[in-house]
């Protein structure tokens, strides 16, 4: 009987997730057709092309942007998680506050940054009105805007697991640390941070993965200047019509994401905060 329960999900996930991925995998080993599409023979050409300096540059840029986003999330998110974990009864309220914007439209949250950052956006308007600047600052369509958008969108991914691990921490640990002479910053650095390390690692990777494959944020906020792997994939499948190469890029991207997730899930301590 149990099989009947699993059947719809198996069929649907198979048909509209697994099979499409297999098709893309097959495409990545085929040759680009003259009018788009794919042709025989089988080849690894597309994967080899990923090593081209142009594409290595994109790969590097994606990794760099994702890494800096994760770092910024750590700096912004750790104190926030610590604050929430310490806030007693109001914990649930603060957690909801962190999660609320996360569940509202991703597109609109990204759009909100265009509204803030563009030449006639709120920040430039205010600064000009205060006569702090005479010409609008070029805030939009650069790496900074992309980082702001990514950190803004994915910060909850960091806060949640860190909160989960801080919450599990025995408060007596800090009392013991104080008893042994470590208070304030030293206790934070020598006790709180190491104890919540599984959460920090989980959070960092959970931010890194979606940042690496992000498409919408660099598209809207990077204005075509900050091309990342996601945009490369989209471009190859639409305007460039080089499906085999787009497919190879997809699998390179998916491979890195899956590898990171697998590493994360292997650690039991980390699994417990997810």
């Amino acid at each position, binding site marked *: *009987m149990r*099989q009947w*329960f*699993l059947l*719809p*999900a*198996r069929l*649907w*996930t198979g048909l*509209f*997730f697994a099979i*499409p*991925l297999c*098709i893309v995998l097959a495409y990545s080993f085929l040759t680009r057709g003259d009018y788009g599409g794919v042709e025989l023979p089988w080849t690894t050409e597309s994967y080899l092309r990923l090593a081209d300096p142009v594409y290595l540059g994109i790969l590097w840029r994606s990794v760099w942007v994702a890494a800096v986003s994760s770092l910024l999330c750590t700096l*912004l*998110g750790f*104190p*926030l998680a*610590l*604050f*929430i974990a*310490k806030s007693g009864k109001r914990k649930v309220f*603060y957690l*909801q*506050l*962190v*999660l*609320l*914007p996360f*569940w*509202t*439209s991703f*597109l*609109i*949250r990204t*759009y*909100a940054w*265009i*509204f803030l950052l*563009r030449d*006639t956006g*709120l920040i430039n*308007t205010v600064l000009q*009105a205060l006569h702090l600047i005479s010409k609008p600052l070029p805030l939009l369509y650069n790496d900074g805007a992309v980082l702001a958008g990514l950190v803004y969108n994915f*910060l909850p991914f960091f806060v949640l697991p860190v909160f989960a691990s801080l919450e599990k921490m025995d408060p007596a640990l800090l009392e013991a640390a104080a008893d042994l002479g470590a208070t304030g910053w030293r206790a934070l650095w020598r006790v709180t941070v190491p104890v919540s390390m599984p959460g920090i690692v989980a959070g960092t990777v959970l931010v890194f*993965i979606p940042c*690496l*494959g992000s*498409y919408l944020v660099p598209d809207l906020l990077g204005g075509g200047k900050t091309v990342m*792997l*996601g945009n490369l*994939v*989209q471009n190859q*499948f639409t305007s460039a019509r080089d*499906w085999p190469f787009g*497919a190879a890029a*997809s699998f390179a*991207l*998916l491979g890195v*994401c899956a590898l990171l997730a697998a590493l994360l899930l292997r650690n039991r301590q980390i699994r417990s905060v997810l």
Partner: protein
Amino acid sequence: MKLRLYATLALLFLHAPLLVLIVFSFNSGKFTAWEGFSLRWYAAAARDSQLIDGLWNSLLIAFASAALATLTGTLAAYGMWRKAAPVLSAGLYVSLITPEIVTGVSLLALFQWSFRFLHLQLGMHTVIAAHVAFSIAYVSIVVSARLRGYDRSQEEAAMDLGATEWRAFFRVTVPYLAPAIAAAALLALAVSFDDYVITSLVAGVDSETLPMVIYSMARKGVSPVVNAVSSCVVVIFGALVLVSERLQRR
């Protein structure tokens, strides 16, 4: 306290952009300078036939795909709770971490390839199929979380009292799962309504969704009409999510 200040700033960072957007959606002027309170952009949005069509398409897709995904995902979560199904659960995990753009192009590849044999076109049905595929994982996570606290002897007791497996499932397990199923449905509704990346790749000419309309408007530059529409979406979503959370904690 320094920590409180820092946390307040972080929370401000999370909320200010959307709050500012909502405030300026009520601005009577076209530009970012505040010129007075007005609902003119809401009126303009209500008259914009592209936005209205997009909204209807989005609602139709969201309700259809949420219904299907909730049913499929709930059954799957239950099946996996009864006995581990490693292949399916691995598949669902992978679907969660796969970048949207990769899911999108692979579905596009599937449809383009299969439509050579099937005389079909991209349209509402392809969007719904895609949305169900990525929502199943969300639904099954929410329902699985509730099943973790479920005691197998509940079903055994039902069977002991004369209910068959199916009747035990519907009379005892489903009522127990009801809050989680409702929360999962709302979540599926939200992720479907929100999706732009995958939708834009598998939508046909007749199935432009609200996010697609908003995207094309945002590409052209900021329009106060987009602010108005966005504010509506944000507020409605926020309410939906709060309801969903409340249900999950029951």
